[in-house]
């Protein structure tokens, strides 16, 4: 499904998520209320302090967890109870299946959707080439590095041709250099698929480099406190980190997030404004 860049592709309206209290503990208000409109084909990143509900937001949008309140829609249809067709998710944790080869991992979802064998062969071969995994098609995940395993997971999502790709800190476990290079691959993938991408990340530089728009979230319960338009051209790569605008974007994000991050650490407002030398 193609759509106008200014039309909503997915939407959260007044969404909250409250985890019920267990064993005498009070309920945990993890998220919201949150309003978010993802435009067709945009690259949107969410940054925020640890535990602010970023992953919860992604799970609610994916249909992996129900919203306690509010409305979630994808392509105009409500999201409830199951992951809608056309939505792909890549998790932070290594989710490659260790008992399958790289090829079988990537073909896993396609085999269960009734796609014919020739088409599976074509799509998997294409995804493996695109992700630079062609020479490792017969390897098992245990024989690959962390970055390559994450590429397997991305390829497995990519072959399903999702129109909305949700990425939950997919490069969180990788070193800084590998993350930058993986970011380039992600941008390449985004331009080629023209999918809408929602990226959850704790790295401000990663968000600033990759995104069209960045949402900064408050400490728990997470709400959007700032939305930053980067203004980057679609044809970009990791070299934009050298531009002065890049520094301005990360600086603005940090200004928004510093106090919230201190709150998340339990330091509160009093210390948030304190001078480092005080």
């Amino acid at each position, binding site marked *: 499904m193609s759509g106008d860049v200014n039309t909503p592709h997915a939407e959260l309206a007044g969404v909250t998520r409250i985890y019920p209290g267990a064993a005498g503990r009070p309920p945990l208000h993890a998220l919201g209320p949150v309003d978010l409109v993802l435009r067709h084909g945009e690259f949107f990143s969410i940054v925020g302090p640890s535990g602010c509900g970023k992953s919860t937001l992604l799970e609610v949008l*994916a249909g*992996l967890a129900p919203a306690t309140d509010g409305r979630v829609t994808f392509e105009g249809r409500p999201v409830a109870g*199951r*992951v809608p*067709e056309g*939505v*792909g*998710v890549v*998790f932070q*944790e*290594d*989710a490659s*299946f*260790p*008992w*399958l080869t790289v090829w079988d991992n990537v073909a*896993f*979802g396609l085999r*269960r*959707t009734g796609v014919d064998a020739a088409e599976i062969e074509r799509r998997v071969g294409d995804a493996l080439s695109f992700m630079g995994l062609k020479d490792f098609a017969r390897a*098992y*995940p*245990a024989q690959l590095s962390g970055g390559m395993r994450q590429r397997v997971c991305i390829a497995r*999502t990519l072959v*399903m041709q999702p129109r909305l790709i949700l990425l939950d800190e997919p490069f969180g476990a990788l070193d800084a250099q590998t993350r930058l290079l993986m970011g380039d691959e992600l941008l390449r993938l985004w331009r080629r698929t023209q999918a809408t991408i929602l990226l959850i990340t704790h790295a401000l530089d990663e968000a600033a480099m990759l995104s069209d728009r960045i949402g900064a979230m408050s400490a728990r319960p997470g709400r959007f406190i700032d939305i930053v338009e980067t203004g980057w051209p679609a044809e970009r790569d990791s070299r934009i980190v050298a531009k002065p605008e890049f520094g301005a974007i990360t600086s603005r994000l940090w200004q928004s997030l510093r106090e919230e991050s201190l709150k998340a650490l339990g330091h509160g407002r009093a210390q948030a404004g304190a001078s480092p030398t005080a």
Partner: protein
Amino acid sequence: MTKAGSRIVDLVLLIAVIVAVWQGIYLLAGDAALSAPLETVRHAIELLARPRFWLDIGESAHAFAYALVIAWLGGVGIGVWLGGHRLSGDVAEPILVALYSLPKVTLYPLILLLFGLGISAKIAFGAIHGIIPVAIFTMNAIRNIKPVYVKTAWTMGLSPLATVRTVLIPACLPEIVSGLRVGFSLTLLGVLIGEMFASKRGLGFVIMNAIGLNDVRTMLAVTLLLFVFAALANSALLALDRHLHKRV
């Protein structure tokens, strides 16, 4: 040299060392305590030529097969339940571990009271040896499944049944196979101990009878045959175990 060739050389060397040590101890201890390796092999072949010995093998094999099926199916069933139901698992785990450490021979009088003298008691005694490790390994295999695998299955639109078949079972299979391997050895041990203490047939009885008659040759020949059987079966299970674990 290939990896397989190197393994064969290692195996031949290991057997040669065991035989050499055995021969050395025989030379030191004499006929009264031990029979020589070659003589033991010769006597084992003689035993295998006797129809009466095959009745004993059949009796042990029969009891072992039943005990193994009960231990494997029961252990996997209990493990799946305890692994899937957190509270039951938390309550049962220390009990299972305590039972695992208990010398099961202390329970044999109780088994005999419950099942009487005969094959049922041997089967029960073999099964209680094997069922606990299989249950513990299966429970841990299920508990250790990464939740992200289930989430991934959901994002692929898999039904609950397809998730169990294509994700959960393959994810916990390596550990379950490890449990089955341990369960195999302990079940065999349980059946043989059962035959040694309260039976008139079976390989355990043949060993016990040979001990009573101080027939060292028969004692060692039967032990050797059991060792060869256990080693071959265990090697097959170990190969499967390694094949599954090398992927993890």
